[in-house]
């Protein structure tokens, strides 16, 4: 199946055209993916820098390193940048953009110009938010709770809200493009049952992007109007109900965590099969679990509001529904584990990250059950327990999956291999550093340390120091790939079209792929993850 012979001057999407204009005006989904990769990486480091500042401040119980106002702005900007400008676009806009058309056998996404527009919207939103941050910052928390954000904060709330509003449309358009592409652009023979699970996962995430994002857009618009014109909708002084804001905010922002995690789950499905050389266990169940998570994810939002003063009967309903959304996630974890059973397993870097993902996501998911449980949530709500839980899902899950995916498809994207030994070391550092950072926070949370505290009582110090120490290990784990990825662009070994000997349409085109992906439209005649019929001999690379 390894068809293409590597020639030196083969035309590909990277060398087909040069110059800044050929990038900024490109409609090629692969180049747009690269644009996203660069922009979200910048945002990741910015958000990471804020995180480091937060952790340094928390080394000591007293608020001595930075002022409380600065601290409040730091965690707000950390949240806004990481959630809206890194996690939500990460896998969909980079890997999804690059891979979904290749995987379904299309020459591009359905609306290439809309795709480019969505990158520009992302940049416009990011710049607006950054300007708001540079010129004074925002201190409302990424959740913008009213009436604090509408009445009591003296910072650039409107600027940040408008930034997110604009970036929201970027997300909507990406989601729309994926849904239409997956429905309408599949190659002949690429039936729904043969669709790679990465596409299923991105499809599910796209459903949420399309349905949820407009609601947060209008909500933030109302917050901006409330600040500017005092319209009263969210302001209790003027008769509004602040809980309505929370309902509307979480209607999007809870499903949004599934926008983040679902594509990551898709990445893991690809990697576990490839490095176990096996068909995925329970294909239909994993695929349907993605859709189930997307739909059920819309039914659980008020579990963020159990102690906010909502009706206890509504809390009952939302608690019950929250357990339901945990089930498909559990189904996925079990299926990935079962996929490894009687496989033929290699420990390449992407697989190491995948191991890490499954383990950390399991912890993140199970602690989510704690939060769905009404009596327990009362104790741990708005404490470090919640912080630890969502970092286990977002960083332990999502960022791990993103790193796994980057390492898996880096040879496809750039045509080069990275140094495997360094990559394995960094995977290990990330795993160790992550657990050291965030596990202590579960304990802190149940003990009652509230989140967003600039200073804290002294008995919480030891665990906080441990957490900060872990964060520094984690930082090293993230810096390393940055270095060797850039290094590999020049010095990495040529990867060849299929370095992992994987199945899937994206591995049948040369690396890097040609501009139009496929010289002729492929016809799919095999099932997904058909490793049975893939030759066992491996192309040896990277040694």
């Amino acid at each position: 199946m390894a068809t293409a012979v590597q020639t030196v001057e083969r035309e590909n999407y990277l060398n087909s055209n040069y110059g800044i204009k050929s990038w900024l005006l490109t409609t090629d989904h692969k180049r747009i993916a690269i644009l996203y990769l660069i922009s979200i990486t910048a945002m990741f480091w910015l958000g990471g820098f804020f995180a480091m500042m937060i952790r340094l401040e928390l080394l000591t119980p007293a608020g001595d390193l930075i002022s409380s106002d600065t601290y409040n702005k730091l965690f707000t900007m950390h949240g806004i940048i990481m959630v809206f400008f890194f996690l939500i676009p990460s896998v969909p806009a980079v890997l999804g953009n690059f891979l979904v058309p290749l995987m379904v056998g299309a020459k591009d996404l359905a609306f290439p110009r809309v795709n480019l527009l969505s990158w520009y919207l992302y940049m416009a939103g990011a710049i607006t938010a950054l300007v708001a941050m540079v010129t004074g910052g925002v201190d409302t928390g990424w959740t913008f709770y009213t009436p604090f954000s509408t009445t009591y904060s003296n910072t650039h709330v409107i600027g940040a809200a408008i930034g997110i509003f604009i970036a929201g449309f970027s997300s909507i358009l990406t989601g729309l493009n994926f849904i239409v592409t997956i429905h309408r652009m599949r190659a002949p023979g690429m039936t729904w049952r043969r669709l790679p699970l990465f596409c299923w996962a991105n499809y599910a995430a796209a459903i949420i992007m399309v349905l949820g994002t407009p609601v947060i857009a209008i909500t933030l618009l109302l917050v901006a109007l409330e600040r500017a014109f005092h319209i009263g909708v969210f302001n209790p002084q003027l008769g509004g109900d602040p809980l309505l804001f929370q309902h509307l905010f979480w209607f999007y922002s809870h499903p949004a965590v599934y926008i983040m995690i679902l594509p990551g789950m898709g990445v893991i499905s690809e990697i576990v099969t490839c490095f176990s050389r096996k068909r995925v266990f329970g294909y239909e169940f994993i695929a349907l679990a993605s859709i189930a998570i997307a739909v059920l994810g819309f039914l659980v939002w008020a579990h963020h509001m159990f102690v906010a003063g909502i009706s206890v009967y509504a809390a009952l309903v939302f608690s019950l529904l929250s357990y339901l959304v945990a089930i498909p996630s559990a189904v996925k974890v079990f299926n990935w584990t079962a996929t490894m059973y009687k496989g033929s397993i290699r420990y390449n870097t992407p697989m190491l990250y995948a191991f890490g993902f499954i383990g950390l996501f399991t912890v993140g998911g199970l602690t989510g059950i704690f939060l769905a449980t009404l009596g327990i949530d009362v104790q741990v709500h708005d404490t470090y327990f919640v912080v630890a839980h969502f970092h286990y899902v977002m960083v332990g899950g999502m960022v791990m999956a993103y790193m796994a995916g980057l390492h898996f498809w880096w040879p496809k994207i750039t045509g080069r291999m990275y140094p495997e030994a360094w990559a394995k070391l960094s995977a290990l550092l990330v795993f160790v550093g992550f657990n050291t950072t965030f596990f202590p926070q579960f304990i802190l949370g149940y003990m009652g340390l509230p989140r967003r505290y600039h200073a804290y009582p002294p008995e919480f110090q030891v665990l906080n120091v441990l957490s900060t120490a872990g964060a520094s290990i984690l930082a090293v784990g993230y810096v390393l790939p940055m270095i060797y990825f850039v290094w590999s662009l020049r010095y990495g070994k040529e990867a060849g079209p299929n370095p992992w000997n994987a199945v899937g349409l994206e591995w049948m085109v040369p690396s890097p792929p040609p501009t139009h992906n496929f010289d002729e439209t492929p016809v799919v005649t095999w099932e997904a993850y058909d490793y049975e019929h893939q030759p066992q001999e491996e192309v040896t690379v990277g040694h």
Partner: protein
Amino acid sequence: MWKNLPLFPERASALAWQVDGLYFLLIAVSAFFTLLIFALIFVFAVKYRRSVHPHAVQIEGSLPLELAWTLIPLGICMIFFAWGSLIYFQEARPPKGAMEVYAVAKQWMWKFEYENGQRDINQLHVPVGRDVKLIMSSQDAIHSFFVPAFRIKMDVLPGRFTTTWFRPTKVGTYHLFCSQYCGTDHSGMIGQVIVMEPAAYQAWMSGGASSGTLASNGQQLFQQLGCATCHRFDTQGRGPNLTGVFGKPVLLEDGRTVIADENYIRESILIPGAKIVSGFKPIMPTFQGQVSEENLMALVAYVKSLAQAQQKGAASDNSSVPDTPNSQ
């Protein structure tokens, strides 16, 4: 009391044991599944590594297994759901006869006012073994009343009352945190709950110089603000007679019935036109901006005391005040 590295919060309320019990169960179940997954990954990764197991065995899947790992976790979750909800509903329903403390949260402090009119800032004194109900509201942003040792937390909202309750079981001093982010000094909005022996509590209570009970302050306000001119204690007033109203259903002009709870009294003072009692005209002026949160609480306490007085006198004089004021 605190060692250098405490790993678990103190348990100082009647409810804490229940919460912890469920918490331990959750930890046990979570640990089991986490270890299960970790162990399976480890065993598979070693046993089926490429060098010893070069040819994978292709397996499509298994319906019984899928059903098992869908239904078993679901069943376990339903246990958590039932137990967690039971605890939550206990927390939501203060027992009858609880002593009431009014709390006002503002950036960035807690103000407490006891039934006898005594006030406290950032400290809440309570006797051990008594049920304590808190009636809370905020002057500005949303705050949250959180006492980890009692395992309770409730957001404190502007524009309405929220309530929570606890029964302290252990004498001591416990953290009171604001757990809902509320601005610059959010982390400074902490205080103490001081649980005292009943005798010590009595001594502390009588030591403070208070200018009358909360309800009597409310009564004074009721006169000062002119409420009494319309809300007379007979049936001739232009507004409903408030005796015995609290805690009872009220028939409204538009046909709905509401329970006259704290929030209803509050709304009736601030937005009188929102819920007009059946048979009355919407003529009451709003007191929005004229009564502070503290004064509102005093008025509520007064209206409440009218009902309690009536309940006490109910045995002797049952027919003087109808349940629903003026329901013709």
